[in-house]
């Protein structure tokens, strides 16, 4: 954690948020300011400490393999920004998935 620099454009791409040039500059400055404050964490002696995996320890929480009611399709599609017949519809996908 040596730098308070953040590549806002790269991160915005990862997060799928379009930003204007002004926003890149403004957010960049604000977030670098935050990272400067965050740099204080470098002083904490965390060496041997385990990261908090869970706030309240519990293990193996699981559910039985028993069906529960699903949502009705008309309810599901009613909230869809765009649907076609029984499906959700989206604009064309350009790149292949991973």
């Amino acid at each position, binding site marked *: 954690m040596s730098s308070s620099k953040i590549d806002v454009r790269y991160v915005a791409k990862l997060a799928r948020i379009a930003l204007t040039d002004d926003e890149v500059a403004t957010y960049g400055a604000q977030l670098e300011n935050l990272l400067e404050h965050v740099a204080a964490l470098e002083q904490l002696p965390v060496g041997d400490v385990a990261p908090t*995996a869970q706030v309240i320890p519990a293990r193996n929480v*699981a559910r039985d*393999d*028993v069906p529960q009611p699903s949502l009705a399709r008309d309810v*599901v599609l009613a909230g869809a920004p765009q649907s076609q017949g029984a*499906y*959700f519809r*989206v604009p064309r996908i350009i790149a*292949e998935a991973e």
Partner: protein
Amino acid sequence: MNGQTYEAVIGIECHVELRTETKMFCGCRNVFGAEPNTNVCPVCLGMPGALPVPNRVALEHTIRAGLAFAAEIPAYSKFDRKNYFYPDMPKDYQISQYDMPITSGGVVEYVLDDGTRKSCRLTRIHLEEDTGKSTHGGSSDGRIAGSAFSLVDFNRAGVPLMECVSEPDIRSAAEAVAFLEALKRTFVALGVSDVKMEEGSLRCDANVSIRPAGATEYGTKTEIKNMNSFRSVFRAIESEIARQEAILRDGGRIVQETRGWDEVTGTTHSMRSKEEAHDYRYFPDPDLTPIELTPAEIDRMRPRAEDLPQHMLAVLVAENVPVKRAHQIVDDAGLAAFYRSVAAKTKAPAATANFLLADPARLANESGTPVHEGLSERAAVELIQLVAAGTIGSKTLKAVLERVWGTGESPAEIVEREGLAQVSDRGAVEAYVRDVLAAQGKSVADYRAGKTNVLQFLKGQVMKTSGGKADPVLVEELLKESLSATP
């Protein structure tokens, strides 16, 4: 062009949909072929405020699958979020396992048709959720390229998935298929999955590279996708090995890329992929608790060795059942169980296997009734013993089999009652042979003069004289003896 010999180095990565009543993190039904977007809920649609709760049976299935291949089940494992955007991803992150999977290591053993024993190590089997399914519209061939829009069905989103990753221990396309069949065989036997590629419950990719024979460093590998059956896995890997060899022989270099198999043209083509590596930003999923198991809990889930197909295969092969037949038996759970109980009584494993896979299998195919339902255990045992004792020949066997198929009747009783037993007594058959030879002087002379095909006629005569009951094998043997003896 060089004359170098190359060896192929292959690793397989496959995704296996688990057989459970419900999805991985919600209670929607896990069933293939339902009407689109009918098995969905706030959780598997990634709606605001929804939370995942893991399916206990899916966890157990995966642990048992790992144990079946001698994988290690760690005391602690967890779920992680794999973050990326795609329209069939309801949350735009997939709940998966990154650095602490629920099983690690393991080895898959398999036998090739020629009896060669091989094995391939597993890196891991981990648990994750499946994505929804998209179809693409507005293009001529339904592919993504050239499409104008996509339609998404989330029925499959959230179905539990085992991701099985192998080490690159596989050395040929045939081995790759044998490896996959071994996986399938075990998963089906354990009841953890149907493993049907055509229904999408098994999807696999292959990593293929080649290197000079004897080299230790790996060559550049390509990832092959879009194989829809075991046969296309075979063809695709062979095609890719040949393609890479041709390039290297020509002095070229292999480009590391993803290639899609085209079933129609029988070739792989480079997939238009963005070369930027995905930054999945894995982190432990805070909505889920870790999986912590004691050795005792793990032991309770351990499959018994005798329930595993590897075990049965080894037993069959050791008892001289041909490898292909052994696979056929083991691959059919009902038949395998039936075989086991019958062979236990006949104490003749090879004969039992050969018998069950011949006429009874044919009848099962024709009638649509499985062998173990068409035949009672007792009937199978008796038929095998009757043949072994020489009491009936193949023709009678077929006839009696058809008689008892679907009934509970006893073949031994029928044979006895109807006098179907063939005559195998040497003396009795000799008597028939003598009678026929005596009556067929011309044929005998013909035979001795060189017309050996007369033998079949004479044989027929002996069978007729005996009312069809003489053991045809013995008849032929005695005829030949008598005919070659000097008069």
